[in-house]
C-alpha cells in the first residue's frame, strides 16, 4: 500500500498523459445523466456550510485554502515542485507540509516575481498553470476554475502568509462514514473539515481519494465511488495531511436464510463478530471440521509439529465433549510451544547471524526463549526490550539496539515491530498515508537519542559480539529541517522536557505498552491472529496505518481489548482463538463462500512454513536434519557447533543457518522488520527440490529410517500401506485407495523397501501433507 504514496507523489508530471478536456467533459455529462436518473447520490451540504471558495468579504487563508489547491492539483507532488530539488527553480514542500517555507518560496523568493500584488492576473503563480505562459507542467486549471479564483483572490487580498491565528483543522471526515451498496452502484461522498472554532467546510473538491481495495470499489478524483466487487473495503480521503476513512460493505449475491446465522454455533466473541460480518456479507459459514482434521491443524498452528499416530489415536478415541478444549490446553503447555513461538518472535526481532556475532545471537535468542517459556505478558516483554541496558551477552535484549544503532532506526523499528506502524516516510516529510508529521517523527526518535554502546559500528561480523549498552547524560537528535531538536515525545504523547533526568526510554516504553495506546494491543493481536488464520484482520499483518483499516474492525478491537483485559497473556488470546468455531471450521467450501478469502467463513489452507515443513519431513521419515553452517552473503560459510544432531529447524536461533531447503521454502531472512520477508507460496523451485533434491530423497533412502523400522515388523502389504498413511497423514486410507495401492504393490517386482519409499514420497509431496488445512 505504500504505492499510494507514489501515486500521490507522482501522478501529475509534466509529461503524464492526462485525460484532458474531453475526458473531463464526458465525465461531467455522465455525472449529470447519472444524477438525473438518481444513480449518483449526492450528499446534501449542511446548512451554513460553505465549500472552500472565496466569499467576498472573507480573507482567503494561505494555510487552509491556498495550499490545498496545490495538493489537489499535484503542484507540490514529488514529481513536480514538491521534489526535494523543486522543479524549474521553484520548490514547494511535499504536499504542503511546511506552509512557512512554501509562503516564502511563493511570495519572497526570486525577488517576488511569482506574485503581482497590483495585478494578480499577471502573477506567474497564475499565468503558468493556467497556460498563459509556457509551463513545463502543462495547463493545470483555467481562468474560470475555482482554483484560479482562490489563488487570484488570495493575491488580490495582499497574499497574506500563514499566521498563528489561522484556524486549525481538528478533524476531517467522510460522509457517509459507512456505506452498504452493491456492484454497479455509484455514489458521491463528501469530505468535511472541522476547524478549531467549530466551523465546518466542505473540502471534497480539494481532497484526494483512494480505495484500499480496487477489486471492491474504485473512487474517482471527485469522490465518486464505483462499486465493482463484493466484500468489505474502505475509501480514504486525504486533506491537508489528514486522513478520513469510510467503510464499504458490499454483500455477496447469495440468498441465505437468517436462521443460518442465528443457528451457527458461537463459542465466544470471535464467533459473534465473525458471524455478524458473514451475515452482513451474506456468506454461509462452513461447518465444523472433523476430529482428525482438527488434531493435525491445531498441532501445527499451536506448536509447529505433526501429532504422532498414537496422539491422534488417543484424541480420536476420547469421547468426552470437551476434548478439543483439553487438547488446546495441553498443547499450550508443551515444550514445542516454546520452540515455535520463540521462533516467531525471533523473526520479529531479526535474530540473524549475519548481523550479530554468534554469542550475541545465542544470548538474544535465549532471552526471548526464557520469556516465552515463562509466558511473560507481552507488555512486559516489550517494555524490557525497549529499556534494555548492559552487556549484550548478559542481557540479550540489548541486542535489539545493536541491530538498530541510531535513534531514527530505533524509532522506526520499535514502531514497526510493536505498533505495526511504518513511520519512515515521516523522516523526510509528513507521512502521506498517516497522520504522523515530520515533527512527530523527530520528537519520537529523540526519545532514543541518548542510547549508546561500547563497541557499536563497523561490520557486524567483526569482534566478539560483546557490547555494553548505556545511556549518555546529554545529546539530542537534530531535526534537519529546523536545525533544532524536537522536544522528546512518544507519537501522539506528551513531550518530556529537555532536561528530563531519567532514561527517556522508560516513559516511552510506558506509553508504548499502555493499554490506552490504540496500536499496541492491536498490533500483537493481529500478528497472533494471522499465525492461526493465514490472513490477518489487518493485511499486510504489520501495516496498521489509518488508511489500511481491518476488514473486521469491531473484531480486532474486541480481541485487542480481550488481550489487554487478560494482562497481555498471549496464551489466553491463543486459547480463545483456537476454541472459537471460526478457527474450527472446515476448509471445504460451501456454496457461496468459495470465492471469499478474507472473512473467515472457512479455514484457509496454508502451505506449511519452511521450518515446520522441514521438521515434518524429518519426523515422518525418522531422519533428522543437520545444521552445522552459518551462511554469510557471498557464499561465505562458517562452521557452527550450536546445534547438536536432532535439533529441529524450529529450534534454530538464527536465520543465517545454511539450509537450501529453508531458503527455497521462503523462511524469513530477518533483514528488515517486515512479515513480508517470509513467503509460504508454492514455486517450481520448491517442487523440483521435493521431487529431485537431496532433502526428501536422501531421508527416504537412509537405511535406518521409518521405512526401515516398518519393514522390521512382519507386516502385510495392507498393514504397511495403512501404517504409511498414519505416519504421513495421521489418518487411514480409504478402502478405494487402499485397494488401488495394494494392486500397485502386487503388480510390482520391486522390493517392498523401494515401494514404500515411493509411497512415502507420494504422501509427503501431497497437498494434504504440505498444507495445514
Amino acid at each position, binding site marked *: 500500500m505504500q504505492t499510494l504514496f507514489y501515486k500521490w507523489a507522482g501522478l501529475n508530471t509534466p509529461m503524464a498523459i492526462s485525460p484532458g478536456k474531453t475526458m473531463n467533459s464526458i465525465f461531467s455529462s455522465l455525472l449529470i445523466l447519472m444524477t438525473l436518473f438518481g444513480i449518483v447520490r449526492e450528499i446534501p451540504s449542511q446548512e451554513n456550510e460553505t465549500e472552500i471558495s472565496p466569499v467576498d468579504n472573507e480573507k482567503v487563508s494561505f494555510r487552509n485554502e491556498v495550499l490545498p489547491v496545490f495538493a489537489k492539483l499535484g503542484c507540490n507532488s514529488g514529481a513536480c515542485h514538491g521534489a526535494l530539488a523543486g522543479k524549474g527553480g521553484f520548490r514547494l514542500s511535499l504536499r504542503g507540509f511546511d506552509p512557512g517555507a512554501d509562503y516564502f518560496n511563493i511570495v519572497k523568493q526570486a525577488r517576488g516575481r511569482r506574485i503581482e500584488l497590483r495585478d494578480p492576473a499577471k502573477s506567474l503563480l497564475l499565468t503558468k498553470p493556467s497556460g498563459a505562459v509556457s509551463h513545463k507542467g502543462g495547463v493545470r486549471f483555467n481562468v474560470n476554475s475555482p482554483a484560479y479564483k482562490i489563488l487570484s483572490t488570495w493575491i488580490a487580498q495582499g497574499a497574506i502568509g500563514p499566521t498563528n491565528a489561522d484556524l486549525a483543522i481538528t478533524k476531517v471526515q467522510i460522509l457517509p*462514514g459507512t456505506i452498504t451498496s452493491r456492484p454497479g452502484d455509484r455514489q458521491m461522498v463528501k469530505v468535511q473539515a472541522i476547524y478549531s472554532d467549530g466551523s465546518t467546510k466542505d473540502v471534497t473538491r480539494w481532497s484526494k481519494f483512494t480505495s484500499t481495495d480496487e477489486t471492491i470499489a474504485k473512487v474517482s478524483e471527485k469522490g465518486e465511488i464505483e462499486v465493482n466487487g463484493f466484500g468489505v473495503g474502505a475509501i480514504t480521503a486525504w486533506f491537508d495531511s489528514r486522513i478520513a476513512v469510510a467503510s464499504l460493505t458490499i454483500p455477496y449475491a447469495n440468498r441465505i436464510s437468517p436462521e443460518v446465522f442465528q443457528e451457527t454455533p458461537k463459542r465466544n466473541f470471535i464467533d459473534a463478530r465473525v458471524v455478524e460480518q458473514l451475515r452482513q456479507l451474506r456468506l454461509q459459514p462452513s461447518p465444523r471440521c472433523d476430529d482428525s482434521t482438527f488434531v493435525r491443524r491445531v498441532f501445527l498452528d499451536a506448536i509447529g509439529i505433526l501429532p504422532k499416530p498414537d496422539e491422534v489415536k488417543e484424541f480420536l478415541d476420547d469421547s468426552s465433549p470437551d476434548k478439543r478444549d483439553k487438547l488446546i490446553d495441553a498443547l499450550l503447555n508443551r515444550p514445542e510451544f516454546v520452540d515455535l513461538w520463540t521462533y516467531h518472535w525471533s523473526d520479529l526481532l531479526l535474530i540473524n547471524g549475519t548481523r550479530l556475532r554468534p554469542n550475541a545471537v545465542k544470548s538474544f535468542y535465549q532471552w526471548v526463549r526464557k520469556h516465552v517459556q515463562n509466558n511473560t505478558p507481552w507488555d512486559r516483554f516489550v517494555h524490557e526490550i525497549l529499556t534494555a541496558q548492559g552487556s549484550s551477552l548478559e542481557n540479550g535484549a540489548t541486542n535489539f539496539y545493536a541491530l538498530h544503532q541510531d535513534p531514527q532506526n530505533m524509532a522506526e523499528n520499535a514502531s514497526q515491530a510493536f505498533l505495526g506502524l511504518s513511520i519512515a516516510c515521516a523522516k523526510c516529510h509528513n507521512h502521506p498515508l498517516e497522520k504522523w508529521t515530520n515533527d512527530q517523527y523527530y520528537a519520537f526518535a529523540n526519545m532514543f537519542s541518548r542510547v549508546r554502546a561500547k563497541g557499536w559500528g563497523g561490520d557486524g561480523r567483526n569482534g566478539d559480539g560483546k557490547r555494553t549498552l548505556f545511556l549518555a547524560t546529554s545529546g539530542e537528535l537534530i531535526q534537519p529541517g529546523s536545525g533544532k531538536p524536537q522536544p522528546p515525545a512518544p507519537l501522539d504523547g506528551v513531550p518530556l522536557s529537555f532536561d528530563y533526568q531519567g532514561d527517556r526510554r522508560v516513559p516511552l516504553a510506558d506509553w508504548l505498552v499502555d493499554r490506552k495506546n490504540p496500536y499496541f494491543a492491536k498490533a500483537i493481536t493481529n500478528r497472533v491472529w494471522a499465525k492461526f488464520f493465514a490472513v490477518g484482520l489487518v493485511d499486510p499483518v504489520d501495516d496498521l496505518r489509518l488508511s489500511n483499516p481491518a476488514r473486521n474492525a469491531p473484531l480486532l478491537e474486541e480481541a485487542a481489548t480481550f488481550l489487554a483485559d487478560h494482562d497481555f497473556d498471549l496464551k489466553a488470546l491463543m486459547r480463545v482463538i483456537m476454541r472459537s468455531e471460526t478457527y474450527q471450521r472446515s476448509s471445504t467450501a460451501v456454496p457461496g463462500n468459495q470465492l471469499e478469502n478474507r472473512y473467515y467463513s472457512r479455514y484457509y489452507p496454508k502451505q506449511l512454513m519452511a521450518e515446520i515443513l522441514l521438521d515434518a519431513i524429518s519426523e515422518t521419515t525418522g531422519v533428522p536434519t543437520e545444521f552445522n553452517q552459518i551462511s554469510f552473503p557471498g557464499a561465505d560459510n562458517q562452521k557452527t557447533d550450536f546445534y547438536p544432531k536432532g535439533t529441529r529447524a524450529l529450534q534454530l536461533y538464527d536465520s543465517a543457518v545454511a539450509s537450501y531447503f529453508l531458503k527455497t521454502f521462503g523462511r524469513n531472512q530477518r533483514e528488515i522488520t517486515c512479515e513480508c520477508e517470509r513467503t509460504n507460496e508454492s514455486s517450481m523451485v520448491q517442487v523440483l527440490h521435493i521431487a529431485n533434491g537431496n532433502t526428501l530423497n536422501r531421508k527416504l533412502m537412509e537405511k535406518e529410517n521409518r521405512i526401515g523400522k516398518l519393514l522390521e515388523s512382519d507386516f502385510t502389504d495392507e498393514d504397511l500401506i495403512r501404517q504409511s498413511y498414519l505416519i504421513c497423514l495421521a489418518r487411514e486410507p480409504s478402502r478405494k485407495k487402499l485397494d488401488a495401492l495394494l494392486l500397485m504393490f502386487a503388480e510390482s517386482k520391486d522390493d517392498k523397501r523401494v515401494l514404500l519409499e515411493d509411497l512415502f514420497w507420494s504422501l509427503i509431496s501431497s497437498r494434504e501433507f504440505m498444507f495445514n488445512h
Partner: protein
Amino acid sequence: MTGSSITLEFENMLDLTGNGSAKTCNGTTRREILQAGTLGSIGLSLPQLLEAEDKGIIKEKDDDRACIMIFNLGGPSQLDTFDMKPNAAAEVRGPFQPINTRGDFQISEIFPKHAEIADKFSLVRSCFHSGAAVHDAGWQMMQTGRLFSGGILTPHAGAVTGYLRGRKTDLPPNVVLPEKMGRGGGNLPNGQSGGFLGKVYDPFELAADPSKPDFKVPDLLPPSSLGQTRLDRRRKMRDLVEDSVSKFETSENAKMLNDNFQAAFRMMTSKQAREAFDLSKEPDKVRQRYGMNRFGQCCLLARRLIEAGVRFVTINTFLTVFDEITWDIHGSAPFTSIEGMKNIVAPMYDQAYSALIADLHDRGMLSKTMVCNLCEFGRTPRVNPAGGRDHWPQCYTVYFAGGGIKGGRAVGASDPIGAVPEDRPVGPAEVIATIFHSLGFDLEMELPGPGGRPFPLVNYGAKPIQELFG
C-alpha cells in the same frame, strides 16, 4: 457528528448457488479459464490457444515471436551511456567521451562493442516515469506498464505473454534469469510476477549462476538412483493419493502446488528441456564470446531457451541494488562512482549484449525476437558531491533491437542537460505496448482482471512507439 449510513437494497437477488463472480465480456469467468487446462509457467491448453486465435487475440503467424527483456537494475546514467551531452557544463557531461557508431547516433566510449552493432538497435532517449524515484516503483512500471495501486498487482509482460500464448514446448513460456529481483529499498513488489493473472503465470526462475563451472538448474534432474520405473510410479502414486480436491479447490496456492508438480514432471522428463539448459553443449568459443560471467552466460542461456521454445526471457543484470556494484552509481560506498562504472559494469555488459545481438542475427532469430533493454530510471543531470549521480525518473534511455525494430535510430530527445524529454516523451505503458506489438498481440484486448472484470492489456490509449518499427 458521525457518518450517516445508507443502505441500498437488492431487488433481484441471485440464489445461493450462484457463485457471484463477475463474468468477462465473453461470459467466461477467470476461474473457468483457470480450470480449463493446465496452465501457467506451465502453459495454456491447446483449445485455449485455438480459442485465442479465433478471437484474433493472437495472430497465428506470430506464434514464433519472442522477447528477451534485459533489465538494468540500478538505473544506468543516461548521460554517461546513451544520451551524452558533450557540450554541457562539466558537472553535467561527466567524465566520458562520446564515440561514433554504426547507427545515426553517438554513444559513450565505455560501450565500444555496442557501437559496432548500433545498426541493429534503436534508442529511445525520452523515456520517463511519474512514480517515485525509488527502484521498486520503476521496476513495477517498466515491467508491467503500470504503478501498482489499490491492492492490484499488474502482471509482468512475460506473464501476460505466458497467459496469452501458453507454452510452446516442454519448457515454460516465461523464464527469469538468473533469479528474480531482490530488495529494492522500498519493500514494494518488484513487478516480476503473474500479478492478478495468478501465481501460475509467475516466471520460472533459474535460481543458479550459469557461469559457475558446476552450473545446473537446481534439482532439474532426478537422482540417478531413481530409474524411469520409479519416477513413473511416484507420479502415479501421487496422483492416486492426492485426492482432497474439495478442500483445496478454493486455495490458489494449493492449486498452484499441483500445477507446479505437473510442470516439474514435464520438465524433468523432457530431453529438450534438459538440453536447453545445458550450456556445456555450446562450444567454448561461443561461451567466451558472451563473457564468462553471470550476465554473459545468462544472455547465452536466453538465446538457447528462445531457440527451444521459451517465449519470454527476462534477464536481471544484477540481483539487488545493495550487495553488488550495479548501475546505481551514487558515488559513495557501498555504491560506485561514475568512473567505477567504466571498469566494473560496462565491459561485461557491452560484451554480452553485443554478442547476443550478433548471435541472434547470425542465426536468423533476430527478426522474430525483440531484445529490449530497460531500467527503472536514469540519473541526476548534475554529478553529486560524491562523484556519482542519484535517482532520476524524469528522463532516461531505453533501447530495442529485433522483433521488427529498425536499428540505428534515436527516437525522442532530452533537453540540453538530459533532465526532461524535449521531444517524443515515452512512458512505461508505451514501452510495454511496444513489446506486445512486437509479439503480435492486439493491444485493444482485455485481460481477465481482479474479480473477473476486464482489464485493458495496456492503459487505454497507450500506443507502441511506431517510429522504431519498419
